[in-house]
């Protein structure tokens, strides 16, 4: 018998042929199969766990993430046109899976709830023998699942999570984030806003009343104030709010001339729609045109707001219209398979899968600690965001940030945003012990291989 803190199986599935002779209580065999880390893959395949919201408000975003994962698995196993593999600066991926093992995957539903997400991730680790968990469409879930993976001893490659905390005060040695964060949004947006609207602006913030909202608001306030803006008021809105009229109306009574909506998803769609209803876009205050800003844009959600997004600034991790080779390859590959362009969530999830696979290949092992080491300080290019660094200190990717604007004349329902500026990585880089990221106290802890 073997004793472990988290077990694996999957082996049996993969190595089914080798089990022709029934072994009764063959604990010894088990122990031998352990290579000192959780769910060490055996046989000819390796299992990845794709944990995305399939029900609840972010279900469509989750579905897009899942499409990207399936595409990534196809490409890793040598199917399709290879997507971004040919453009990726690291050349270890050759279409033979990961370390020569065929990539298999299991899927689960996070329901955008920490509990459900952890339950789903645990079942992937305990039941399906997943060696890596990835996905998610909100920061609460990302932090919760990242914590779980740290304890269980598997790698977590975060999906869409934008809160500073994910690689800030809640950073973990086994967790990695490719997506950008609230600070970067603020740092990238502020100069563009100052350029477009002037440095003498008074901002009114509406902020979703939970951790992501707060870190986003804190970041954008700091960056805009550094350029001369003042902040009139910051109002916290309940997450469950669906009608924002009573939060928008007071804006009319102040001398604010910019409204910043620190909302995401359904909240963003509704607050933006309501703000436009109240005529804020046409208002003139202090002789200036009133403006609305949405710091974190998502194309999927922007669709829900319809024409209201026209002309409104925001930031995004990636957009399919980027002209670089990697982005084009990915868009072509995804678009050909599914008939529409990928979202930023799809892009980050696809990229994370490739990055993981490559790290394993470079490390020559699935051991989470070896993989983490391979990812730490890794510099790469060709995955759609230009030269990128996976910083060792906090496991955050540093890359250029896109500032976008709602398009005035969209040609299709996917063509809603236009890129205004690509903010260079140097402008959005911060020290790992930045106070918004847990300060000096924040620590990754040490890598946990489980078992």
């Amino acid at each position: 018998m073997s004793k472990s803190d988290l077990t694996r199986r999957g082996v049996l599935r993969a190595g089914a042929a080798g089990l022709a002779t029934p072994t009764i209580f063959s604990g010894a065999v088990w122990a031998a199969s352990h290579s000192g880390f959780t769910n060490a893959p055996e046989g000819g395949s390796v299992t990845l766990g794709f944990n995305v919201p399939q029900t609840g408000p972010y279900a469509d975003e989750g579905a897009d993430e899942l499409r990207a994962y399936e595409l990534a698995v196809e490409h890793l196993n040598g199917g399709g046109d290879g997507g971004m593999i040919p453009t990726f600066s690291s050349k270890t991926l050759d279409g033979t899976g990961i370390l020569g093992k065929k990539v298999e995957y299991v899927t689960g539903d996070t329901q955008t709830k920490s509990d459900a997400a952890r339950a789903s991730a645990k079942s992937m680790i305990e039941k399906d023998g997943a060696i890596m968990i990835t996905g998610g469409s909100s920061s609460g879930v990302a932090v919760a699942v990242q914590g779980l993976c740290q304890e269980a001893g598997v790698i977590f490659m975060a999906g869409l999570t934008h809160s500073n905390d994910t690689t800030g005060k809640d950073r973990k040695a086994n967790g990695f984030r490719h997506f950008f964060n609230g600070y970067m949004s603020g740092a990238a947006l502020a100069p563009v806003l100052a350029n477009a609207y002037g440095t003498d602006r008074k901002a009114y913030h509406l902020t979703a009343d939970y951790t992501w909202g707060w870190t986003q608001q804190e970041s954008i306030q700091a960056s805009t104030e550094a350029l001369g803006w003042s902040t009139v008021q910051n109002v916290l809105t309940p997450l469950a709010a669906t009608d924002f009229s009573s939060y928008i109306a007071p804006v009319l009574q102040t001398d604010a001339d910019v409204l910043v909506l620190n909302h995401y998803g359904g909240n963003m769609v509704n607050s933006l729609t309501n703000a436009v209803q109240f005529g804020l876009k046409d208002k003139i205050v202090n002789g200036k045109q009133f403006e609305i800003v949405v710091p974190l844009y998502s194309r999927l959600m922007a669709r829900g707001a319809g024409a209201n997004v026209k002309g409104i600034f925001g930031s995004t991790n990636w957009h399919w219209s980027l002209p670089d080779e990697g982005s084009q390859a990915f868009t072509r590959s995804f678009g050909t398979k599914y008939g529409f362009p990928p979202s930023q969530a799809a892009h980050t999830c696809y990229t994370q899968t490739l990055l993981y696979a490559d790290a394993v290949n470079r490390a020559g092992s699935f051991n989470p600690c070896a993989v983490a080491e391979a990812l730490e300080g890794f510099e790469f290019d060709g995955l759609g965001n230009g030269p990128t660094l996976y910083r060792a200190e906090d496991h955050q990717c540093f890359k250029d940030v896109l500032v976008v604007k709602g398009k005035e004349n969209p040609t299709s329902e996917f063509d809603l945003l236009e890129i205004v500026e690509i903010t260079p990585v140097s402008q959005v880089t911060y020290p790992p012990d930045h106070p918004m990221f847990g300060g000096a106290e924040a620590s990754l802890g040490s890598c946990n291989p489980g078992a």
Partner: protein
Amino acid sequence: MEAIILQILNGLDKGSAYALIALGLTLIFGTLGVVNFAHGALFMIGAFCAVTLQRLLNLSHEVIDDTKKDFLGNPLKVDVPYLADWFGADAAQTIIQWSVPLAILFSIPIMILVGISMERGLIKHFYKRPHADQILVTFGLAIVLQEIIKAFFGANPIPTPAPPAFTGSFDFGALIGMENIIYPYWRMVYFAFAMVVIAGVFAFLQFTTFGMVVRAGMADRETVGMLGINIDRRFTIMFAIAACVAGLAGVMYTPINSPNYHMGMDFLVISFVVVVVGGMGSLPGAVLAGFVLGILEAFASMNEVIDIVPGINQIIIYLVAIIVLLTRPRGLMGRKGVMEE
């Protein structure tokens, strides 16, 4: 002062939605005695009637435009609505923009049909069952309806704008000599519409024989049954009316906030609170509670209030519900003995 006037307007507007949903719910819940967890789903279906009509009006065929390229670099396929072929591009554009008001007409027969089939097919068999069973079956139904809508329309919100004539906002301030009191046209339309529907339902119950019988049935079902009046059929009609009211509330709500498949669940809990705060079995109570809670919610979200009591905007509805129920045992206008056991 301006701020207060604006919040009263907001409160009336929120209250309109609450009152409309609660009105239908209280017809089913307070009158027929069925704990209908699928009522939110009826509201949602109403909203998706508007979406469906918008889609129907937008039914298109593809025309290839060689001058433009799509995201893969192929020639752009442009969707041209059939309406444009029939009536010309401008007329078609206008019709599509007016899809939400048109959806009122479209939704009434659909909601009546939905209401009747729900009552005849399912709810009818649960009048005499325990409330617990009613909760389970209607909750199950709500999930199923929601998932069906999700399967067709996805999980994301779908924009359904108001007609151009009603976008933008109205400057009240200019009218009464104050600054900065502007209010969106469509929200005023919503309030007016709610008033008309509420008045219609009340008039119907007050001035028709049908209404009299139903009101008598609400007060004492057994006696009415004994009089040989076919109360069953009237209850079916009642259910259809309730479904209709919820559906219309949903149709008209779409331009205020883009509809999504779980909007019914978002309103479900609130609407139960509204009905109970209003008092079981009381239609005026439900309407009153809807507006009271709407206005209080609007006021609680003012900065001045939040500064004094942080977090009050998160809990105001529940706090008010607790206070009302503790000081007035049967809510604002409830009747004795309804759903108290």
